């Protein structure tokens, strides 16, 4: 019984949140990794792209709510997601046309593109703040929980409850669908194959008649879709705040690099590695250990390795360790 209680407490406080957070990071990291693989630079504006997409979703959700449209127990934001993705696609394509294309034609060094993406980051950040303001916005509705802690206790008769938020379940389902679609696209369709060819060897791809501008355009479209999805899921799970998306940049980059920049599979693995380590290191283990430890040996402190404010430090430490011992990432990414 104690063991089951410990297991439930562990799932409730560590596994479920970490899986949801890991899916969000994985979607974000996929975007970063695709940009790196095709356009060959680290996109600092990615966090703000996520914020922009999520902002449109918030606005459309409000509009739908005002019009009386709802999605039953599911959040209305899911209905708004396609519109948000469209809006975000328009934004990134316009940005590419006005900003990045010039440097691509010049064959500018990657670091110049990184600085350019810094400028884009400023502009997107300013746009989001200008349109929706810098404050917290709540836009989740529908049923809050898939499984309530109290119901779970009643069903199982355990002391510990397991709560699964609707947003967490949706996050996992949507992330799985998005990733499956992406991999199907990259591996099975002609366009996806041309993207991978372009990423592998630009010159060879050009020689075989692949149109680079088309590859770049499709990359941006996919990235916008992934970024918006990640942004909306994160916003549903926590809350929408522009600055938080900027701060997500660090764990997202850490995920992409840990997995191997340019490698989509690695981005997913990296997302979960970062999420699980952040949650486990900052979780107070007292409850779980009290169930597991024999009588009289319960821990006296909270058994929390680091306070939750240091979660950045965790992703960073993992990033450094991977970079020092395996610079290409866990899955073989590009060497930069």
């Amino acid at each position, binding site marked *: 019984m104690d063991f089951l209680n410990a297991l439930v407490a562990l799932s409730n406080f560590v596994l479920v949140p970490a899986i949801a957070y890991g899916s969000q990071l994985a979607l974000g990291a996929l975007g970063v990794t695709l940009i790196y693989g095709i356009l060959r630079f*680290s996109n600092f504006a990615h966090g703000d792209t996520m914020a922009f997409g999520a902002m449109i979703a918030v606005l459309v959700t409000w509009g739908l709510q005002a019009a009386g449209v709802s999605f039953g127990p599911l959040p209305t934001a899911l209905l708004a997601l396609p519109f948000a993705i469209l809006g975000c696609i328009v934004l990134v394509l316009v940005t590419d046309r006005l900003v990045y294309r010039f440097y691509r034609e010049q064959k500018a060094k990657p*670091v*110049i593109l990184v600085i350019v993406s810094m400028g884009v980051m400023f*502009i*997107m950040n300013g746009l989001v*703040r200008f349109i929706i303001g810098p404050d917290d916005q709540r836009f989740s509705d529908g049923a809050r929980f898939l499984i309530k802690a109290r119901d779970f206790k009643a069903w199982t008769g355990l002391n510990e409850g397991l709560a699964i938020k609707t947003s967490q379940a949706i996050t996992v389902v949507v992330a799985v669908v998005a990733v499956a679609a992406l991999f199907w696209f990259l591996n099975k369709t002609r366009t996806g194959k041309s993207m991978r060819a372009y990423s592998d060897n630009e010159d060879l791809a050009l020689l075989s008649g692949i149109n680079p501008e088309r590859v770049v355009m499709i990359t941006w479209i996919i990235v916008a879709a992934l970024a918006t999805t990640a942004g909306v899921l994160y916003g549903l799970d926590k809350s929408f705040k522009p600055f938080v998306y900027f701060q997500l940049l660090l764990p997202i980059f850490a995920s992409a690099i840990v997995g191997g920049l340019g490698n989509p599979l690695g981005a997913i693995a990296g997302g979960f590695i970062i999420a699980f380590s952040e949650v486990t290191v900052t979780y107070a283990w007292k409850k779980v250990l009290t169930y597991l430890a024999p009588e009289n040996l319960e821990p006296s402190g909270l058994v929390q*390795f680091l306070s939750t404010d*240091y979660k950045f430090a965790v992703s960073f430490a993992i990033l450094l360790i991977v970079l020092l011992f395996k610079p290409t990432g866990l899955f073989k990414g590009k060497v930069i």
Partner: protein
Amino acid sequence: MSEPVKNTLLFVVVGGLILLTGFTQSWNAAILILNMGLISAIMSIGVNLQWGFAGLFNVGVMGFVALGGLAVVLVSTPPTPGAWSTGGYGVVLALLLGAATVVAAVMVAQKMPKGRTRTVSLVGILLVGFFVYRAIFDPNVSAIEAIDPAIAGNIGGLNLPVLLAWPAGGLLAAGAAWLIGKTALGLRSDYLAIATLGIAEIIIAIMKNEDWLARGVKNVYGIPRPAPVVGYEVELQQDPSFLARAEWLGLDPVTASTLSVKLGYSLLFLVVLLILLWMAQMALKSPWGRMMRAIRDNEVAAEAMGKDVTRRHLQIFVLGSAICGIAGAMMTTLDGQLTPGTYNPLRFTFLVWVMVIVGGSGNNFGAVLGAFLIWFLWVQVEPIGLWLMNLITVGMADGSALKAHLIDSAAHMRLFTMGLILLIVLRFSPRGLIPEK
């Protein structure tokens, strides 16, 4: 127009803009822009040293600036009575043990042969070290934080003159930069960027959460001023000789005292800026500077000529970060308080980058010019945006939601404008206003 004439003209224009603020808004505002401009110029020199001279992509400026601010608290504030005896030494001991653990782990990782023994001993050292560290660290920290938490709860400082805190800030930032550089400089530019971005966030997280160090988000107020040069308004207003001078200038005592305090800071900052600018210029012209640019332009060739690229990179990374630390210490002194919650990477890292790139990377004068210009715009875009929004919305009905929203949002024009300026400069004049020679 010849090169020097054009450059002088650019400086005159920026100076004119600041003077214009003085005439049209208030002299207080103008001198405030000047003071922060001077500090920003020092940060720009630091970043320019790293990026312009050596091509190092450091986006952790905020962390070094914040460390400079921390140094001010640790050097110049009075010590909290009893803090050292109750827990200070214990904390230091714990930190030393923590450092020893890391050093031991690194030694094991480097010296022992690869294999299971190495992994086991590595994990063992780290785990034991961590728990011993926490066992000593936690009770001592609670002891310090229990002392008078409403006004203190930290170990306080050394009660030394605040001017000494400026070089101390540089040293603290240099120490941190050495640690980061040692681990991250071997990596390529993108990784260095992410690494520095992360370390800056961690430094801020530490400053926010370690209350025993500098009170965390409870902030430290009342940092002493650099005494003879910068006085206190209240004392000045009672000083007869000061009142006589104010009257001679035709100013009322309150205005005169605030202006005198701010100008005192300007004078000190100007001296520091001139010294650092001179040093940076000498470095640029010296064989060392030529070597740095050679490494920047072609690392492989420089390495083939026998230059130790990683070592040189570490050297200039530490130097540039130290300059940012000095600027951070000066800024905290100017504010008179340390507020870790206000450090924001957009403002303290990326804005400095905009300054360097707009001014002209690789050129010290360009960096200084960019700093003044961008800081002026950063301050003035808000009122200009408000004015613009009022102009745009003049035709709309009063009380319409769009009008209210547009006017409220004018404050967020800043980031947008900065991004636009950066992109325009990068596109049409990528070498900046005063290009590298």
